């Protein structure tokens, strides 16, 4: 079970209400605020003819540098006696038009070509990607400035050009999304169903790119506004009323009339800020449907500490005394916080034991809590999980309330872990050797550590340890990678090995080899093994004892033969019955072949 599975577990009974991204956006204070500011500014801009006290270029000689609040000059006058309020209103419109043009052109070009390139692929994709990459590397501001004589300097035409420079980002985004969608199985299914390309694009592809496009539109708009203002600040198109020109005017006056800078810069900041915040809030709303969970600050580093059980988690069985076994778990609970403040228990009062040198299989279907149980023992559950138990001990050492450092030392030595997906569990940026050497406990010289690792690699059946030592993960096969991970796990001579579906991602032939290796190593090191799996073949091959879990509870445990031959619990019986019998082979004839048979007769 991977992290995504954990999330599925967490979300499993989240209310099925389908709050749209927009509604989720409105639940965020920042989003609402940004939306409100933006809407107000747009309204101000639209109502300019009604609201403005003067035309923006009107100047009254009596109102040069008039203070704010002068009747008819709410924000005062600038150094030429122009009404700052009227100029602000007009500038809002200029900014909004800039945003519309810049973002509009950027979106049209970027989305249009992105859709085509992503969906058609092949040469179209190659050519347009090349062109847009080229466009992306243009120093756009410099080129816009250079093209100033060509555009005639109106902000509209400048924004059209700038729109083209904005397009590559959108193009990349849309193209990559579309390429992703194009490879989705549901698009394949639609194609097989005979849908036309146009229909697939509109029905399946556009839906996916919609959200990201809205988000980038907000950022593009803010970029366009910024560039327009910046150019005007520099003096390009200075005759046009705009925030840039206003800022520039105020900049000159900065020492005598600093308040004038507040209007221009302030409104510009409001406009840009609301766009960016809106984009961010919408992105968050899209990304995290149950983002209210975030109430609790999420620490990404560190793991959940296992707490002693408290009274609100009643023991299903009376707490047994800690046995002298290798692993002792009594009344383990794992809970995750839910969006509405409640907690969901994914492991409910599980107790289990692993004796030294014993291989115990932990079976169950997805969502049964078997992986959560295993990770509890490793102390590797995410921080937001709350874990409690009456007893949890490895080799007599209690893990309850153990702080991170002590858990880490324990993991480096007494407990080891073999994951499911071998490739995903190796750091792609480091050589196999360096990753394994790092895992070895300190006190060993680099030379010794390297020798040890090479020996280990040889031990796990890697034919050319030296070469593998120097290789990067992508240079070795999945089966090899799993051997490397096993080597890493047993390097510290652990007493307890926790293997989470160690062969599920592998082909059967490789699986057989890995199972052999695990059995050999277990015998050699005398490790106790807790093997999490859903494959009864693997259980039959490796395990001494089996524990069956369902919905976070332990339903049955017993000797491997008794579980297979005399399952007690109805669920176990159902599981065993579901195993496809090797003896039964489909015998009913195919109607078609039967007909051919008749025809042959």
């Amino acid at each position, binding site marked *: 079970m991977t992290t995504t599975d954990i999330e599925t577990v967490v979300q499993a009974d989240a209310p099925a209400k389908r709050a749209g991204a927009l509604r989720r956006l409105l639940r965020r204070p920042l989003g609402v605020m940004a939306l409100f500011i933006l809407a107000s500014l747009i309204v101000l801009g639209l109502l300019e003819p009604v609201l403005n006290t003067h035309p923006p270029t009107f100047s009254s000689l009596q109102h040069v540098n008039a203070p704010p609040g002068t009747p008819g000059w709410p924000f005062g006058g600038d150094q030429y006696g122009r009404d700052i309020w009227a100029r602000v209103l007009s500038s809002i419109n200029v900014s909004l038009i800039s945003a519309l043009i810049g973002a509009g052109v950027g979106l049209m070009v970027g989305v249009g070509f992105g859709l085509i390139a992503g969906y058609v692929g092949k040469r179209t994709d190659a050519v347009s990607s090349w062109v847009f990459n*080229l466009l*992306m*590397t*243009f*120093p756009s*501001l*410099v*080129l816009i*400035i*250079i*093209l*100033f*004589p*060509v555009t005639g300097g109106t902000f509209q035409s400048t924004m059209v050009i700038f729109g083209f420079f904005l397009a590559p980002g959108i193009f990349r985004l849309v193209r990559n999304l579309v390429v992703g969608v194009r490879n989705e199985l549901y698009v394949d299914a639609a194609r097989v169903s005979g849908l036309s390309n146009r229909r697939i694009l509109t029905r399946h592809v556009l839906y996916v790119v919609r959200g990201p496009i809205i988000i980038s539109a907000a950022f593009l708009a*803010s970029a366009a506004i910024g560039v327009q203002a*910046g150019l005007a*600040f*520099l003096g390009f198109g200075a005759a046009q009323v705009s925030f840039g020109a206003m*800022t520039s005017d105020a*900049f000159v006056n*900065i020492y005598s009339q600093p308040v004038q*800078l507040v209007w221009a*810069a302030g409104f*510009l*900041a409001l406009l840009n*800020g609301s766009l*960016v915040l809106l984009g961010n809030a919408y992105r968050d709303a899209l990304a995290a449907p149950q983002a209210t969970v975030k109430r609790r*600050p999420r*620490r*990404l*580093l*560190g*793991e959940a500490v296992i707490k002693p059980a408290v009274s609100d988690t009643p023991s299903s069985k009376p707490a047994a005394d800690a046995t002298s076994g290798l692993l002792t778990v009594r009344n383990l609970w794992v809970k995750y916080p839910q969006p509405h403040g409640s907690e969901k228990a994914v492991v409910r009062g599980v107790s289990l034991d692993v004796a030294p040198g014993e291989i115990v299989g932990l079976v169950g279907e997805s969502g049964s809590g078997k992986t959560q149980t295993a990770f509890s023992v490793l102390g*590797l559950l995410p921080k937001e999980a709350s874990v409690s138990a009456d007893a949890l001990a490895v080799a007599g050492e209690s893990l309850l309330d153990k702080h991170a450092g002590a858990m*880490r*030392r*324990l*993991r*480096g030595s007494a*407990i*080891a*872990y073999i*994951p499911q997906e071998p490739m*995903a*569990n*190796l*750091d792609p*940026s*480091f*050589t196999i050797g360096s*990753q394994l050497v*790092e*895992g070895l*406990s300190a006190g060993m010289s680099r030379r010794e550590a390297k020798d040890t690792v090479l020996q280990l690699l040889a031990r796990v059946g890697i034919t050319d340890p030296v070469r593998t030592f120097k290789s*990067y993960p*992508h240079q070795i096969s999945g089966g090899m990678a799993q051997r490397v*991970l096993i080597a*890493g*796990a047993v*390097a510290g001579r652990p007493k307890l090995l926790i293997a989470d579906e160690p062969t599920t991602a592998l082909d059967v032939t490789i699986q057989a080899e890995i199972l052999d290796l695990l059995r050999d190593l277990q015998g050699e090191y005398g490790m106790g093994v807790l093997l999490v799996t859903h494959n009864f073949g693997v259980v039959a091959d490796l395990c001494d004892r089996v524990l069956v879990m369902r919905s976070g509870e332990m339903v049955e445990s017993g000797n491997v033969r008794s579980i297979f031959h005399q399952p007690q619990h109805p669920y176990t019986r159902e599981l065993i019955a579901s195993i496809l019998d090797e003896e039964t082979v489909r015998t009913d004839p195919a109607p078609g072949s039967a007909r051919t048979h008749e025809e042959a007769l």
Partner: protein
Amino acid sequence: MIIFLLRRIGAGLVLIFVVTAFTFFLTYGANIPVARNLLGNSANAEQIATLNAQLGLDKPIFEQYFRWLTSTLHGDLGTSYFTNQPVAEALAARLPVTLSVVVVASIITILVSCALGVASAARGGIIDSILQGISTIAFVFPGIVLGILLVFIFAIQLQWVPAIGYVPFAESPSAWFLSIIMPAVVLCIGGIAAMAAQVRGSLIDELGREYVRTLRSRGTSERSILLKHALRNAAGPALTTFSLQFIGMFGAALFIEKIFALPGYGTYAFNATIQGDLPAMLGVSLFGVGLVVVVNLLVDIAAGWLNPKARTS
């Protein structure tokens, strides 16, 4: 790798060629009355015609372009119409100014944004909120205002740094640093926010990956997981963001140069443009694109170095 580099260099040359040709034909098409602007108010038609002939502006456009291209290939970018300074010489004097600012700003950006991003990803909570706040403010807070504020405090009140101008490194490294540190700080504020957010996001992605859990299962320290493994893997996406940042800063340097009166590439581009100084404009676009090509190449090399998959295949 070598083939890859050669291909990138080739593509870069094509890019340079395309952009300069683009600039040439467009600016030519804009029909800027160069001679009139040069000679000013009192010149008569005859003097203008003479100057046009002197500058070769009476020749057909393709001939002019060919002349520019051949002389450029010989390393001669021509002479500015307006300052009468060889364009190459002017750019050689001005690029170091802008590059100093941009490079120092980049270094600050990388250091600070990595620190912020790491802290935010690792600690979350308050630091995360602070980062969000900073990035929002940085995004909306006009750099001009910040620039003015910094000048007022550090140059005028405290007199720790000069208010304007640039001192070449060769003249005095310490004066050089003082002359560019404020522009660099103003320039990198926005970039830091964006980069830190990027680093944070990538780091969070990396920390959620399975290999991190496996590293933990072997007792690897959180410090090593964060700073060695996760950061290394997060560096790739951050690098791409950085390259765009760098190019962006190069454009934004224009505003900074105005506020701090730095004789840089941006002001040169600005002047060339408003004067219609064709040779200077072409030189500007040549160097601008050339620089972008070089930066992208370096980023590609760095990305290749970071990504063993790209490096080993």
